[in-house]
């Protein structure tokens, strides 16, 4: 089968696992509570994302260095306790800049230490012993998480509160306050996941159609090659 463009696209996106393919939130359903409930504003999303980065990157690095050496039953508590300890400086840092937001996040900031994205990455055996690969993979997964979190926070804050980064947006004359509640987050993320899936399928379909057209053109050219010019230089087709 002739799939030149499709394969090229597939190879391109496969190099970024977590960001485009296997997005931790939209494809794997990881770290959902934070995207659903804690992303009611861009500032809250930033606080959660900062906490997530601070807790996840060093813990996954630790897991990649010690994963195979630790007994299976002790690994998860060690990672969870390590991530929680790392959240302490993050909390101090964010309290200095966003005290109200951090207070309003409530339970969601401390539970970042046991989030499913962190546990998923720590338990990936193919990353054990490869710290650089683990860091790259974690970075991409966090970027994917951050992108989804940012989009959801933007939509919810804009249409739920009529503000963006706390500043009123003049062209929003109506608000859907329900978007600020966890069920609003669930509905937004459901539509976002479905939308991303539909766009991905449309893109793949368009590339496939393009490949098919290219293949048809090549087959037609092979079956009916352009006629050579006459010996005397006058074009035969004329």
């Amino acid at each position: 089968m002739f799939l030149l463009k499709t394969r090229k696209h597939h190879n391109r996106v496969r190099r970024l696992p977590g960001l485009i393919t296997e997005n931790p939130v939209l494809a794997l359903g990881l770290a959902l509570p934070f995207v659903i409930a804690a992303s009611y504003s861009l500032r809250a999303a930033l606080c959660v994302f900062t906490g997530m980065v601070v807790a996840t990157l060093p813990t996954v690095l630790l897991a990649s260095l010690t994963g195979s050496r630790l007994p299976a039953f002790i690994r998860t508590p060690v990672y969870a306790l390590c991530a929680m300890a790392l959240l302490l400086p993050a909390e101090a840092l964010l309290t200095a800049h966003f005290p109200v937001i951090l207070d309003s996040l409530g339970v969601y900031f401390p539970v970042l230490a046991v989030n499913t994205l962190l546990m998923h990455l720590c338990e990936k055996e193919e990353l054990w012993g490869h710290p650089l690969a683990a860091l790259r993979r974690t970075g991409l997964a966090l970027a994917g998480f951050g992108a989804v979190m940012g989009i959801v926070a933007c939509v919810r804050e804009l249409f739920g509160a009529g503000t963006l980064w706390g500043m009123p947006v003049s062209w929003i004359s109506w608000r859907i306050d329900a978007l600020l509640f966890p069920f609003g987050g669930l509905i937004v993320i459901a539509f976002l996941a479905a939308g991303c899936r539909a766009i991905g399928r449309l893109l793949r379909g368009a590339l496939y159609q393009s490949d098919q057209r290219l293949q048809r053109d090549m087959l037609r050219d092979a079956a009916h090659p352009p006629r050579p010019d006459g010996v005397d230089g006058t074009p035969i087709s004329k």
Partner: protein
Amino acid sequence: MEAIFQFLFYALTAALLENIFFTRALGIRHAMFGSPREILSHGVILTGITFASSFLCYGVRHLLAEQSLTPVLAALCYLACVTIVYLAFLPVCRRPDLRRMLPVSAFNCAVLGALILSSPGQDSLAAAAGFGLGSGVGYTLALFLIKTGRQRLELITLPRAFKGMPILLLYTGIVSLAIYGLIGHQLPT
């Protein structure tokens, strides 16, 4: 007698009114996968761990009552309690499938979230234990409710983009909205 009433009151409150799954979306990933048997095992282990940890957390809260702990530092203490309970559960769970599930059920957002949420209001051991038990039971019931919905959603015709996780999230959102209304909240207008 008062302690029993308090226990039951907090257990029912945690299971129905403050269901950690529907009101806070904690532990939502576990609703998307797994057979009823796995959900039951997960729920039973989670309930046991939350219930047992709530006793330890109650003790820790009283020990450190005079210290002004930040939320994360308090959560670190609760996580240490969960770890102790987890290590105590290890010899009990001998079956390989339960042993595999134990870390996942012990260290997740639902357990830690329930323990953090139970901390401010409950000033008695019965209340704290009731809240811990109710949270676990409510979470397990919520997983079964979502599982039932998942089975029904598989039978209906849907746009391809919505199949799987998106429709399940939408379904959970609508059930969550219904529960939100059921407990007497008014939607902002």
